């Protein structure tokens, strides 16, 4: 943590850099959530009739999968000082794989309805935001999987920051989904 102490006076979990990444990601998604709210307000009927084609059940299952994944990542951070993070890291990565499977199943259903990015503002928002979220999830799965594969139980000090940073990132993926899920599937003002 010595280099972190030089760049920032507050010791942030995972080091300062991951929090700058987090801030810029949340800012980006935040702008899209505002745009989504404005677009919903402009054409509520279009949004509500389109939303009826989504199954909240699949979204709920995926929310549970991601929340479990976040718990697994947190367990990895806790287990790390004893050199026992590997199974938790692998399980967290697998939660991302499960999420992807369910998401692809949902996409197939949507594409079978003949829907594209240009169908209407709701379907653009659904496809674009979930796809961007999924890309972020892929990055998380890659990092967690790589950490699990190369985990060295003897190097606990050197790895602490990296594992914390991965967990922080994985929580962010979860957090974005927790806003995305109700906004896309549940809200019918």
């Amino acid at each position: 943590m010595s280099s972190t102490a030089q760049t920032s006076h507050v010791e942030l979990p995972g080091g300062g850099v991951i929090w700058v990444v987090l801030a810029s990601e949340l800012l980006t998604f935040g702008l899209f959530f505002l745009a989504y709210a404005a677009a919903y307000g402009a054409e509520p009927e279009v949004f509500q009739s389109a939303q009826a084609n989504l199954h909240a059940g699949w979204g709920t299952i995926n929310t549970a999968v991601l929340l479990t994944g976040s718990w697994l990542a947190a367990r990895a951070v806790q287990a790390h000082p004893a050199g026992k993070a590997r199974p938790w890291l692998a399980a967290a990565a697998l939660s991302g794989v499960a999420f992807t499977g369910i998401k692809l199943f949902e996409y197939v259903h949507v594409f079978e309805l003949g829907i594209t990015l240009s169908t209407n503002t709701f379907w653009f928002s659904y496809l674009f935001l979930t796809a961007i979220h999924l890309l972020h999830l892929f990055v998380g799965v890659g990092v967690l999987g790589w950490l699990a594969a190369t985990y060295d139980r003897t190097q606990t000090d050197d790895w602490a920051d990296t594992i914390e940073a991965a967990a922080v990132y994985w929580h962010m993926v979860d957090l974005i989904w927790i806003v995305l899920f109700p906004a896309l599937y549940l809200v019918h003002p």
Partner: protein
Amino acid sequence: MKFRTQRISWLFFATCMLLLCLQIVYGFIMGFAHMGYDVLHDYIPFNTARATHTNVLVVWLLCGFMGAAYYIVPEESGRELWSPKLAVVQWASLLLVAVTAVIGFHFNWWEGRKFLEIPRPLDYLVVINVLSFVLNIGMTTFTGKRYTTTGMVLLVGLVSAALLYLPGMIWFDSQVMDSYFRWWVVHLWVEGVWELIMGAIMSYLLIKLTGVDREVIEKWLYIIVGLTFVSGILGTGHHYYWIGAPEYWLIVGGVFSALEPLAFLGMALYGVTMARRGGRKHPNKIAMYWTVGCGIMSFVGAGFLGFAHTLPSVNIYTHGTLVTAMHGHLAFWGAYAMIVLAIISYAMPQMTGRKFFDTWVPEWAFWISNIGMLSMTCAFAVAGVTQVYLERRVGMDFLEVQAAVAVHFTALVLAASLFTLGILLFIYDFIRYGFPSDEAVEGAAEPEAAAAK
């Protein structure tokens, strides 16, 4: 300099100076044409001058990046350049292609297609040229003694820039599709991978000039790379608003391009904080001026002025007007011209062994050219806003509006004269340094290099 072959960059830097002069001449031709003195119209019509002005800009900046790479990569990878002969051949062929293209423009040998006007046969030569450059730099990196973040970001930036030239060479029958992929080249260069090249050159200069730990400087380079990709890739959408691409680009382009200033804000903070933190006072103060100045001016020109007209609700009025010229001038100057002039200012004393950096000439060159360019930006801004108001709000005819704003081009030409004076001082300084010298090899050992031994 540490390695003898780093001197090859001098050829590229000298070419930069020549092409910059040429670019300025064509800028003046257009400035006078706007004032109503289009006296060269029969020989150099406006479209020819415009194509020459922008294409020469791109070539001299690329030339500067290549020169920077030939200077930085040997040092970062700890070995001589893989093939100095290939580098010289590559330089000569690049110059040949550039000269052919410029002469061709004057005989109507061009493609249209704004910013990528050079004819298709020359495109293939550019590809071969850039491949040989990438080969040389890549081999130097991969057979080197060490990999550094700065070196790798520079290499990734240069290779991506080479790959991104290709979408501009695909043939489409549709104007919309052609424009769509043309922006992959133009936008993903200047608002994407060129920012990596700029970040890497800045990082190298800050390591050399401030004495701050490489580890700290390179960590912040990662953040800049991250911010560039988060905003820049989908920010391409701000070119798609009114070209016939799907409507969703209004929101995608709007949101992501609005975030693009963050990367440039990062560059500005990067330069300023590292300069303040630096405990060591490097004697080459003027290279530090250009480095920190580049961070700040890129934020003002590319970040702030870009943001000023990137939102669709604003851009629907300003698209394709002189407002774009306002943003374009300060953005290219602040971000890319200044970083090339920064590396030249740093490398010249190192390559020649002559330490002229504490005379008045380079300092005045810095201030006069920057004040000149800022004044030009103001002149473009006034002309641009007037044009938007009269043409897009009041609905006046295009040519009537051009006559109405002609007066602002007098101000532009005056400001450009000041700018040119600054550039001439810079070039005078460049010439004064003379040729690279063998005596300069290892002679000017940097504290960082000395500490590494």
